[in-house]
């Protein structure tokens, strides 16, 4: 049964990108274990506002695990200790009475801090703009059944397409590498006939952008896969390597 618990949260506070940050600890009383983690942060912010203090900035939007906006490194895990979910899907029943919960922003050179727990993830957008799409040439809508796609390919493409671009892979990686993200975005298109014509160009330019933005070299530790809320497999990274190397050797 869900109880009401008293907890402490140790939160990273940083006024701006260039300011020096520090941890602040706040006590929270009677938090229902049935509430979500972000609701707990809402309660904290209400408390802070009532005390005349500045609320904690954190990212969130859909609060149902589909938009990829929420983040947070909670007690040594991106998206908290519970597996296969985003922070917005995390519930306070993963914590116990008397716990001190450490909450940090994603930390990586590719994701600079904007304020408190909010980091700048536009790097992912830039990588997508470098080639993470199929060029649309207007014309009639082709019949859906005109392009046969083997079932296993379709499944793998759908699995890769589950990536919500939250950045947990980068946050978990000791190398600050964005390979799982890029691999998922390259794979979801490379596996399908619609994505094939541009596959080589896509792999090359997305990897080039990823490198340019300061993400690290993947050494296959697999931390990304473990922490990914959408269970994206690192097999996608092997596929990305394959696509990239094929494209380069063809040049």
């Amino acid at each position, binding site marked *: 049964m869900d109880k009401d618990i008293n907890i402490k949260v140790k939160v990273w506070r940083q006024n701006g990108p260039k300011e020096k*940050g520090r941890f602040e600890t706040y006590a929270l009383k009677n938090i229902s274990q049935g509430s979500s983690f972000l609701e707990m942060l809402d309660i904290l912010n209400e408390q802070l506002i009532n005390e005349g203090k500045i609320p904690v900035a954190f990212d969130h939007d859909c609060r149902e695990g589909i938009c990829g906006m929420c983040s947070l490194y909670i007690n040594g895990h991106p998206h908290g200790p519970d597996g296969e979910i985003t922070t917005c899907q995390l519930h306070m029943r993963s914590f116990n009475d008397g716990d001190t919960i450490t909450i940090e922003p994603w*930390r990586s050179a590719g994701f600079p801090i904007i304020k408190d727990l909010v980091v700048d993830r536009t790097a992912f957008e830039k990588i997508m703009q470098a080639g993470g799409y199929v060029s649309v040439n207007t014309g009639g809508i082709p019949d859906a059944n005109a392009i046969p796609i083997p079932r296993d390919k379709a499944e793998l493409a759908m699995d890769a397409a589950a990536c919500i671009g939250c950045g947990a892979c980068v946050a978990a990686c*000791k190398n600050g590498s964005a390979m799982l993200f890029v691999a998922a975005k390259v794979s979801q298109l490379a596996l399908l006939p619609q994505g094939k014509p541009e596959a080589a160009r896509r792999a090359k330019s997305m990897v080039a952008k990823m*490198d340019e933005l300061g993400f*690290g070299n993947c050494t*296959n530790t697999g931390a990304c896969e473990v922490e990914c809320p959408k269970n994206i497999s690192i097999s996608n990274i*092997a596929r990305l390597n394959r696509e990239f190397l094929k494209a380069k050797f063809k040049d």
Partner: protein
Amino acid sequence: MSWLIKSSIGRKLIQSISGLFLILFLLFHLSMNVVLIFSHETYDFLANEILGANWWAIVGTLVLGLGVVVHIIYAVILTLQNWIARGRNRYASKSKTQVAWSSKNMFVLGVFIVLFLFIHMYQMWYQMQFKDLFGIEGVRHDGAQLVVDVLSQTWVLIAYVVAFIALWFHLNHGFWSALHTVGWNNDIWMKRLKRLGYFVSTLIVLGFIVVAFAVYLGYTNLLV
């Protein structure tokens, strides 16, 4: 081909190919060691006539040396770049993400291997091929006896075994990681490659350890 050094995947390819090349060399090295157990005479014949200071052995040594140097240089580059990519501010809470220990410690394991290499090269290669090539006094042509002399010291045995264990961890991650890097992996092959890596690293390391102990305990030249 500048993408090889300019792109992250290119740099990983270099690390991967040099690593796989070194694994092949280790397999060859192991088979030489096993000969020692059976016959000193054959060992010395192979070491002096087939290897020794012949032009092909010198070319081989140079290629091997190049492989080692490239692997170490890229190990340093990759590790440094990755350290920087992690950002200036580190997490205060220790990461609780479950990953294979060796995958996080490839560089440290490599440093152990390098330290071993210095000792090992001085004890063996310097005394034989190097001195021979540069006409330095005290060249050893009795390779088998040299190995026995060196490995009958207890500290050498211990140092070697420690290095072999470090190598085992390095290869446990390195083997499948290298194939993953060249793109030869998927959900099905992942398990197979990890198991194969486990097998190859155990074969190499156990082989080295068994021979080292055999030499230490005097069980060599058994066919004579």
